[in-house]
């Protein structure tokens, strides 16, 4: 009996997982209710997560197991407790002492703790506010930001800045209102606005009394009203999908499969090569499918092509890298593709996550970028080029390693070289046409094909480098080994063009960055340079030591 029970619950879980993962469209939860924020309609869940990210530094309160939306609703229903919850993450001891607080290694403080300090520092904060933003010291920036966060927190607790109510006249570009706006302004709400206000009130009251049934009724009402709005931007399916995406974290899952795949390919080198290589490949493909599904979902939610921010470019480039790696493995069947895919995919995922923490908030785009046609053509082409360049770079490394570890196997060396050369041609095709398409976009929207802007120059550098490599090889100037070194170093150029140019902060393409990026970029360049040069020169050094000159 016990056995059946465990089994049942096991199947129950499988079923739950399947229904959960295959269809993001469950019941309408409170997390799904639409809010307008940062220029678009998003589920309350995303809104709450972004708020928590701002105060707390993370999207949920993990150590107390509180979800962002629950935190927000509890703050609204029970502000006294909410104000005592330690959600403000302050990592700068100067800020802590300026607010008359004790330094804590947890770095977490409650609203009630910080608010007195802020009140005492009003004069200081005012003077900081009057400064130009580039003249503010890090301490000043953080203090100012904290005081703004405190105001925001206070406004959240009485729903002043939660734009839950669609405008009376349903228009895509109109600003939504918060429940507070209705209370303070005394405007008579339109019919649909009143309906939403009522269901909201019904839900909050039921939640306060912990009445599950009543809560569900309120949400059913809510869904009905929202679905009935003849209003193109509120799409209940999209809201549910986004909440689901927030919950399942697809890219964390794909990363897990990539790491698993890497471990398995490692094991395959030690025991049962073909068996472990096959499961490793399987795991890579599963990860790849999840990865691709994540990208498709993001495209669906935002209604735009896959790449429009730096974070999305990282995720998409790693997707292209995986696609090429899977193809490579399919043709070679010797683990090389798996190695490239699992290592490259994992590294790029980690890079992506570091950008996600900064601002993967599915934000809106400035006007010139808001063009689906060009995002779909130029940006996609160029990121495919980046992905292929990275794969070529990886194969370049592997060629250099193979040259050291087993240089006698010239057949394998030659086959790796052929893949390397083919991948370089493939990469050149996409970087070249991506760059030309970028020029054409620039011609269409700014009136010049080429302006020597940093981002353009970065893309040009990749093209020139690959042209140089291919022509030198074809003209016989560069031997395969030198070509492999060149393509290994190509990774540095890709990194500079991709992340480096943003550090310059000039021109039309510049978007946000922080000092950490510069540091990591330097580390990467030094690392790649030393690894590649070491691998390249190692055989020469070795042969010199092994055969001492006869005097």
């Amino acid at each position, binding site marked *: 009996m016990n056995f059946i029970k465990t089994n049942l619950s096991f199947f129950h879980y499988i079923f739950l997982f399947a229904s959960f993962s295959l269809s993001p469209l469950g019941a309408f939860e409170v997390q799904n209710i639409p809010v*307008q924020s940062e220029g678009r309609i998003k589920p309350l869940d995303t809104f709450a997560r972004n708020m928590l990210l701002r105060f707390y530094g993370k999207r949920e309160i993990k150590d107390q197991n509180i979800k962002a939306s629950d935190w927000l609703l509890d703050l609204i229903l029970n502000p006294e407790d909410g104000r005592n919850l330690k959600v403000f993450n302050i990592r700068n001891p100067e800020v802590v002492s300026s607010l008359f607080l004790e330094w804590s290694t947890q770095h977490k403080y409650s609203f009630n703790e910080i608010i007195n300090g802020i009140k005492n520092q009003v004069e200081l904060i005012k003077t900081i506010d009057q400064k130009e933003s580039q003249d503010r010291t890090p301490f000043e920036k953080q203090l100012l930001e904290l005081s703004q966060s405190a105001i925001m927190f206070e406004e959240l607790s009485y729903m002043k800045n939660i734009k839950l109510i669609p405008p009376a006249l349903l228009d895509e570009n109109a600003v939504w209102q918060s429940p507070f706006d209705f209370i303070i302004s005394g405007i008579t709400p339109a019919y649909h606005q009143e309906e939403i206000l009522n269901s909201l009130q019904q839900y909050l009251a039921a939640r306060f009394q912990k009445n599950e049934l009543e809560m569900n009724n309120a949400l059913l009402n809510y869904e009905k009203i929202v679905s009935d709005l003849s209003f193109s931007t509120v799409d209940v399916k999209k809201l549910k999908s986004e909440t689901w995406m927030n919950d399942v974290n697809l890219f964390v899952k794909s990363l897990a499969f990539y790491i698993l795949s890497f471990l398995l390919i490692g094991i395959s080198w030690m025991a049962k090569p073909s068996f472990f290589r096959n499961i490793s490949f399987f795991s890579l493909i599963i990860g790849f499918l999840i990865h691709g599904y994540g990208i498709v979902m993001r495209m669906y939610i935002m209604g735009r092509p896959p790449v429009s921010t730096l974070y999305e470019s990282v995720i998409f480039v790693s997707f292209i890298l995986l696609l090429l790696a899977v193809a490579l493995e399919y043709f070679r069947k010797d683990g090389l593709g798996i190695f490239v895919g699992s290592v490259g995919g994992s590294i790029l995922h980690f890079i992506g996550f570091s950008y996600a923490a900064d601002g993967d908030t599915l934000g809106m785009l400035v006007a010139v970028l808001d063009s689906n046609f060009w995002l779909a053509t130029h940006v996609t082409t160029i990121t495919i080029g980046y992905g292929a360049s990275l794969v070529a770079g990886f194969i370049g490394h592997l060629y250099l390693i193979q040259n050291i570890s087993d240089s006698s196997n010239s057949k394998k060396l030659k086959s790796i070289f052929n893949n390397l050369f083919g991948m370089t041609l493939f990469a050149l095709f996409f970087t070249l046409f991506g760059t030309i398409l970028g020029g054409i976009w620039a011609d269409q*929207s700014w009136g010049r094909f080429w302006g020597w802007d940093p981002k353009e120059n970065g893309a040009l550098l990749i093209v*020139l480098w690959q042209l140089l490599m291919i022509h030198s090889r074809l003209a016989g100037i560069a031997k395969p080994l030198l070509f492999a070194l060149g393509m290994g170093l190509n990774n540095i150029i890709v990194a500079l063009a991709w992340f480096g140019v943003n550090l*310059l902060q*000039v021109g039309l393409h510049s978007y946000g960055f922080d000092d950490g990026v510069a540091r990591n970029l330097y580390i990467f360049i030094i690392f790649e340079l030393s690894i590649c040069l070491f691998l390249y020169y190692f055989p020469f050094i070795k042969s010199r030591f092994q055969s001492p000159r006869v005097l």
Partner: protein
Amino acid sequence: MTINYLDKFLKIIMSPKVFSYTLIWLIILVFFGTIAQKDIGLYASQMKYFSSFYFLFLGFIPLPGGRLVLLLMTVNLFSSMFKRNLWQLKKIGIIIVHLGGLLLLAGGGLTAYFSSEGNMVIAEGESSNYVDDYHNMELAFVNNSLKDSLEYTVVDESLLYEGSRFQIFDEGPEIYIISNIKNVRIENRISPADSIYKGLLEKFVLLPKKPEPENTQNRPALIYKIQGTSNGSDGIYGLFLGQGLNDPFKINDQIFHSEYRRERTYVPFNIELIDFEKIMHPGTNVAKSFSSDVNLIENDIPRRTLIKMNEPLRHKGYTFFQASFIDDSDVETTVLATVKNYGRLFPYISSIIMSIGLLIHLLLMIPKMVRRKSK
């Protein structure tokens, strides 16, 4: 003998080594030219490294600039088209790709020498028929004494260097440029000015300020002297870009004032701004779209059209792009980037040619690949 030398020269100029070296130099140039943009700004760096035949490294070592390198590359590519054993059917795809590349480079050359760009700034309800240059300035003397019209006499930037002397009218007074300031700071005078200072300079001083890397953020100014009017208008005058009040002076009993403004290029039609509209992403400061509803007036016949981001107006070789706006008073003002470029179709054509070449090459490769597979 001479033929021999020519052969040798051709051999060098068409050799793949020249291509490799020019590529390496171009890579170095692009890298450092890009880094330099952080300090000296996009335009200055472009002028120094990319739009030049040579530049001085450390102030005295001449090194080849972008134009020279690209010219060399074009010559190399062009001459390599005459190589023996190149024109074979199996290489036709690759040849086409390189012809496309050649066309791209040629178009670049054409654009570099025969294109002009600037801004057309129009306030709502007004119209304009000229384009302001991004970088060059001009000094205009305006005759206010004519009936029903203003007469402009314009001095080109090339005459506005420090120490320059010129006359704007025959037998008229001499103009002497005292200083040409790239970026100016305007301050009140502490002590009363000498009587030689006229107008603006009686109350204020124009002091140079460190120029910003982006030229458009600078406010240039000019200080000049007029001598020989014989009517008391002799003196030192100051002018800055966007100055509101004019300082009148007399030349030959006619009243003039001067304007320091961006160099104007006139277009053979008028553009009237009916309405400028900007839509924000709701509840944010991020613009979703800008657009200018304009009348294109030619021979007094207006044609109504809408200029939007990514949807420019093209007319008579000029293209007007929605570039920016000014929103500081009650009237909205649109800024249309205006370009005239004879080379603009080259990238389009050359990328199509290159694609065709690659396609042909791939098709020609298929039998070879099939043979290799069947082996």
